[in-house]
């Protein structure tokens, strides 16, 4: 990173890391065109840079086989557009995105998937956090970092552990994860990510107004957010994925030692190798409204009430 430490950053200077869902299988099944989406997003990204001279912008593409940085506003390798029809940001980003897609395609399995595969959100979240860590270490004065996930494809339950880990490390370093989810159903992962890290989760009801949603809700820096009434999350889906079959579950077994979640009973916890007898694996019985399977939630419960009955009943 080339940011000079001598720069004096005010509290409203942001480092925005955007993860862009580029899952081709999702975009081909989605009614809204990728080109329209991209032009709205590009306009938004440009406006972020225009909001403040010191603002930094990093864009990470979230593919279904790999992830990659496709734009870094501080990079030296940004070159001006060849034909001068569009800003350097656009041409650079589009150029890198094309390259990324070509790379990503090479990693594709030979046979086409039956259902839409999920994007590697966990990977791009980790990359974003790594970049932010670098910014943290660049000096005492660094821009305020935040992550914005532009996600469309459905959650991949197999990424549950990785995503939760990313979320918790974001929470630790107090990096809010904003999420703009454009898919048809809410994303439990992103809901949890925004809920835990104190970011904003929003699902724009109208795709053709995406730019306006982005610029009114997600363009505000962390400092200004204190004064604004941003859309509140309407509810969080706290369901967890089991560690054994990577399925989203309402009810499961939790290892009493390491809190790993399983959808069926095992004699031995595969994570901590803890030999558990039937009554030591605590069944989590919650249905309907009583869903609380966020890992952090479990910790609270188990710490505060070690008896089985209270763990079972969560409301």
């Amino acid at each position, binding site marked *: 990173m080339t940011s000079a430490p001598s720069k004096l950053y005010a509290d409203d200077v942001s480092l925005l890391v955007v993860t862009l869902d580029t899952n*081709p299988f999702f975009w081909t099944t989605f009614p809204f065109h990728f080109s329209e989406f991209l*032009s709205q997003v590009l306009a938004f990204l440009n406006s972020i840079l225009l909001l403040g001279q010191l603002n930094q912008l990093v864009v990470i593409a979230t593919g279904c086989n790999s992830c990659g940085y496709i734009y870094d506003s501080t990079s030296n390798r940004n070159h001006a557009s060849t034909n001068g029809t569009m800003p350097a940001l656009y041409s650079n980003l589009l150029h890198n995105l094309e390259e990324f*897609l070509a790379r990503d395609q090479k990693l594709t*399995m030979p046979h086409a998937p039956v259902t839409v595969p999920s994007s590697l959100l966990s990977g791009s979240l980790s990359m974003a956090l790594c970049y932010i860590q670098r910014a943290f270490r660049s000096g005492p004065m660094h821009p305020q970092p935040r992550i914005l996930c532009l996600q469309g494809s459905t959650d991949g339950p197999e990424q549950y552990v990785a995503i939760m880990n990313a979320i918790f490390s974001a929470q*630790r370093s107090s990096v809010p994860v904003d999420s703009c989810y454009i898919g048809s159903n809410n994303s439990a992962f992103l809901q949890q990510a925004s809920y*835990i890290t104190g970011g904003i989760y929003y699902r724009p009801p109208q795709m053709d107004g995406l730019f*306006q949603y982005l610029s009114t809700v997600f363009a505000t820096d962390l400092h200004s957010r204190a004064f604004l009434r941003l*859309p509140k999350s309407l509810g*969080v889906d706290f369901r967890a994925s089991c560690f054994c079959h990577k399925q989203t579950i309402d009810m499961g077994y939790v290892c009493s030692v390491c809190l790993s979640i399983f959808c069926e009973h095992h004699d031995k916890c595969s994570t901590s190798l803890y030999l558990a007898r039937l009554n030591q694996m605590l069944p989590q019985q*919650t249905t309907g409204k009583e869903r609380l399977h966020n890992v952090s939630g479990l910790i609270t419960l188990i710490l505060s009430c070690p008896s089985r009955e209270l763990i079972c009943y969560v409301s």
Partner: protein
Amino acid sequence: MSSSQQVVKRAKYKTTVKDPGTPGVLKLTQEKLVFKPNDPTSNNRVEVDFRLIKNHKHTKEGSNKPPWLNLGHSQGSYIFELENFSDLHVCRELVGIALSKHVEPPKVVSDEQLSPAEMTLRIKLLQEDSKLQKLHKDLVASGKLTESEFWATKKKLLDQDESRKLKQRIGFKNSLIFDTKPTSDGRINQVKFQLTPEIKYQIFALKPAVHQAFLNFVPSKMSEVDFWNKYFKAEYIHSTKNTIAAAAEAAEDEDLAVFLKDDEILENEARKKVRRVDPTLDMEADQGDDYTHLPDHGIFRDGSKETAEAQNTFYRRTLLQDLNRQSEVVLEGKTLDMDMEHPRTVAEVLARRKQESDGVIEEERRNRISKMTQIEDLQAQDDHRFAPLCIKDPRDYFDSQQVNALKSLDDSLAGKEQIRCNLGSEEAYGSLRESISKIKAIGLMDPLLSPEVAFKVLNGLTKNISSTKSHLGKSSQESVLDILPNTTKEKLLDHWVCSQELLRHFWSSYPVTTQNLVNKTKRMKDAISQIYSKLEEIKVSAKSDLRHQVSLVVHPMQQALDAALLHYDADVRKRNARGTKPNGYV
């Protein structure tokens, strides 16, 4: 029942008939039998309640077998070989009484049987907490929960109360045992010392030298009586004569000398204590201010005023020393809660205690040094940028769930269906590239969004804001409940507490493993459905302008109850389909 009915006999404990036996002391009371082996390291210690003893047998007098008492329990039997048959008879009689007493009351370990103390505690708790009392009335009096079930979830309350009135421990006597004055009748040239187990214990605690000597000498070198005779002789010499005489006496009898120089061990301890002082404290620098090393301010114990020669200071004890030692032991408190009938065991236990505490002290000291030796200048700056992993306030969770509760359940079901993907990867990536090149060619859409759309978006975003604002009211404390009339509010709150309690019981009885739990879940289900209908009533009876608010409040409660009812039905169906399993796991 008189507690005096106890028998203490020497006996050997045999694990099997062939076992030569561990010698020790067998103590029988009507409640239990305790066998303490003479060798304290032996783990053949037995302590059994007579409730667990099934039967008893014994060898007949006149047969060629030694006097054995055989007490059978569920896994085998305890065999004690007594010294003679008369002892055996005494023991047998007591065992007979004890067993008959414990057989009589049939073993009804019913939860309902409570000690009066427990009962009064519960009543007190109910009286103190009107809410709890109301809940108790609602649930227990109406038969939805049994008394024990109700209290099972309130164990914390009961325990709390228990700990509050922890019985006071008896401390160490604060009178100087050095004052055990001899009584003499004046006629014979003899003095008598009164010696109780309590005093013995005090002596052991106060005078480590005596304690050590007792451990060293008593069973091997001299009898207990001799030991105490010697001890008091030494004390007597001290109190009546002077230090010179003490020295002379000690020179003659080396056993006696032991008692006259307590100081070695005490000094050791003092040294240990000095090590416990904060290691950064410079003791030597302070020594100049210390006047305690000056000899005892001239006051001698036992009122003697003479100043002895320097060589005899060894045998001289000062009042100050004694007082300090006494207060130290008193502050330490009584370290063992046991009867002090056998000075030998008392002495041993005391010795063991001391070792343990020494270990702890050593570790404490090490910890303290490592803590103290941290030099602050050399530490890294302690400004962690990380916020500690914070577990969210549970209230946040409910706030965030409120809307979830209002959403229909179908929503989550719809989310599960996966969109079929009928395109190959080639086409998919191709179309994506096409989009990119399209932007490259014609640039961004122009205009990006139509004014109509922009207006709609703005409306949507701001409408949301104003509605949340009006819902929340001006202060965050204000809630929907405050708008409702008081009676409705009260009713709702009662139902809420009630349903919470019931649900807790309901969910805690899963997985259903016993018939008892089957019955309980059935009972809970009935009670839950009752509350459900009551909530429905409240909803209907609410005034039209408040109906919406009431239903908003009632909805999550009903949903929670719904979930329980659904689970119950599903579980019943599942169990009926499966049938009962052989090992009782339903």
